């Protein structure tokens, strides 16, 4: 019975996609012109105005042409950010899992890349960046990438194609959801995680991205988030905390030996994250110019300082520095510099990285004290690092680098308050929203694997395969 339902759902889905092709107007030139006449919002109509002459009055006005330098950069950055999820995050997390769960942990990052890529082109991009509804969310006008101009500029970055901006944002949505998997690794049912992922991307990530970058209220407030400190890192950490609490502790948490099964894999993963992060931060300039170069330099500086400070904190506190510590510290530094990247100078980046390494190292002791099992420390690294970075942006934003925005230390104390509001709103909205979604998922499919399966490992239990045969 269950099989028949699954098959018919599959056939229905394929049939739907085939039959609905004519409805997906993104490739059809006349439809794009029609969309222009509808003119949903100011930003959209401006797109259409620029795009329209290309189709309707091609002979009179020169067609819009993208800046090839900017376009190249953003497409390369999109690929770099994709590499952060797989293989970067997949290896970073996979190595930290136990041997029996290694493949499942890697699989979660990989399948999220597949799943959210689809969600984004179907409706995610529209909800996040489509025409604004009450400063809270985008509407569905850009669903199926309708009204996203294949031949026109992005309303968010006039020198690059609309599609380039869309795909750059796609890989951000992907990694945000994938990050959450670290907190619930080694015991959450895959079906539950996938259902959670779709709901969470739709009802949490997409609106939140809209709040900050899509013309929503946090952006209007004037809070600074260059590349996703709140949208990506605080949000994934708040969801991770909710997940760790709702899914519950792993069997034997704080009792059994749960050492990472392959730290070399983890260090390679962290290095790939670092590499991809240049796309994440420098790409968020949305052009190949001076701000991208600044973001690139401060990104590397903060990562380096974060790795050093975590390792040295361990050296002083525990007697020896560890490879996992240095790798985690670099990631913490990268997380913290993310909201600040285009706004601060390299000397501020040193302080931001230093703070991130030490604060996040202190934070990894929290889970044992408070009793929640955040398996791979998503809350400590991304939550604490992201919060520190967002606050630090309000301290160190420097008009010399930001081209305007200033923080407390550069004569604008009001900025700090805006940062605090953005941080608090993100934590609260995402944490509560995630709890609700997890409760719903629990009622539908159940969050956890059975105790026996957890004992055997999720590689066998969820996939019928093993990482190492």
């Amino acid at each position: 019975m269950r099989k028949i339902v699954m098959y018919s759902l599959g056939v229905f889905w394929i049939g739907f996609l085939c039959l609905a092709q004519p409805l997906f107007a993104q490739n059809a030139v006349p439809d794009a012109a029609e969309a222009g006449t509808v003119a949903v919002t100011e930003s959209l109509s401006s797109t259409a105005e620029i795009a329209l002459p290309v189709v309707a009055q091609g002979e009179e006005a020169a067609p819009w042409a993208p800046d090839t330098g900017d376009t190249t950069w953003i497409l390369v950055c999109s690929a770099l950010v994709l590499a952060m999820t797989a293989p970067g995050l997949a290896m970073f997390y996979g190595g930290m899992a136990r041997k029996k769960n290694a493949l499942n942990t890697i699989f979660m990052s990989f399948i999220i890349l597949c799943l959210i890529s689809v969600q984004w082109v179907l409706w995610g991009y529209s909800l996040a960046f489509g025409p604004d509804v009450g400063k809270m969310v985008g509407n569905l006008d850009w669903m199926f990438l309708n009204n996203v101009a294949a031949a026109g500029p992005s309303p968010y970055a006039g020198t690059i194609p609309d599609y380039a901006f869309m795909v750059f944002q796609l890989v951000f949505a992907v990694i945000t959801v994938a990050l959450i998997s670290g907190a619930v690794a080694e015991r959450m049912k895959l079906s539950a995680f996938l259902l959670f992922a779709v709901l969470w991307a739709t009802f949490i990530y997409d609106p939140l991205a809209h709040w900050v970058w899509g013309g929503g209220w946090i952006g209007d407030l004037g809070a600074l988030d260059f590349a996703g400190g709140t949208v990506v890192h605080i949000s994934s950490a708040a969801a991770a905390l909710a997940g760790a609490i709702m899914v519950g502790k792993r069997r034997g948490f704080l009792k059994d030996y749960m050492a990472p099964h392959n730290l070399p894999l983890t260090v390679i993963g962290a290095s790939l994250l670092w590499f991809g992060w240049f796309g994440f931060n420098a790409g968020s300039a949305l052009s190949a110019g001076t701000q991208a170069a600044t973001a690139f330099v401060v990104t590397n500086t903060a990562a380096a300082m974060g790795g050093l400070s975590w390792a040295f904190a361990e050296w002083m506190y525990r007697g020896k520095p560890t490879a996992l510590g240095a790798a985690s510290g670099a990631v913490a530094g990268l997380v913290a510099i993310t909201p600040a990247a285009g706004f601060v100078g390299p000397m501020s980046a040193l302080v931001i990285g230093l703070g991130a390494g030490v604060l996040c190292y202190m934070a990894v002791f929290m889970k044992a004290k408070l009793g929640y099992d955040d398996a791979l420390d998503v809350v400590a690294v991304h939550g604490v690092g992201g919060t520190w970075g967002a606050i630090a942006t309000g301290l160190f934003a420097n008009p010399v680098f930001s081209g305007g925005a200033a923080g407390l230390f550069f004569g604008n104390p009001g900025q700090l308050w805006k940062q605090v509001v953005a941080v608090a709103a993100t934590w609260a909205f995402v944490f509560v929203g995630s709890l609700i979604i997890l409760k719903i998922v629990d009622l539908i499919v159940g969050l956890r694997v059975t105790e026996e399966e957890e004992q055997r490992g999720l590689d066998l239990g969820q996939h019928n395969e093993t990482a190492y045969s």
Partner: protein
Amino acid sequence: MKLIQAVIKPFKLDEVKEALVDMGIYGMTVSEVKGFGRQKGHKETYRGTEYTIEFVPKTRLDVAVPDDKVQAVVDAIVRAAKTGTIGDGKVFVMDLQETVRVRTGETGSNAL
């Protein structure tokens, strides 16, 4: 015949093996084992979590020898395996009732 079973530090295996081969012992069985004696285990730290590993990796060497060579073999193992620090291991000697060489069916000392 006696069975000599030595639990030694893994990095000392080559020296012990050479010492035995030099004195004409041509057969032995080696296995990787874990255990502890007076030497305490070690600590491992992964981010905020610290584990105490009680069972230390060791190498176990099994050698069957004729009675007249027992003392010499034990001395050789002790000499080669010794570092003078805690955790050097132990040597056990036990009676061996019978030995059979599978290929020829020889028994007793002839099978060693």
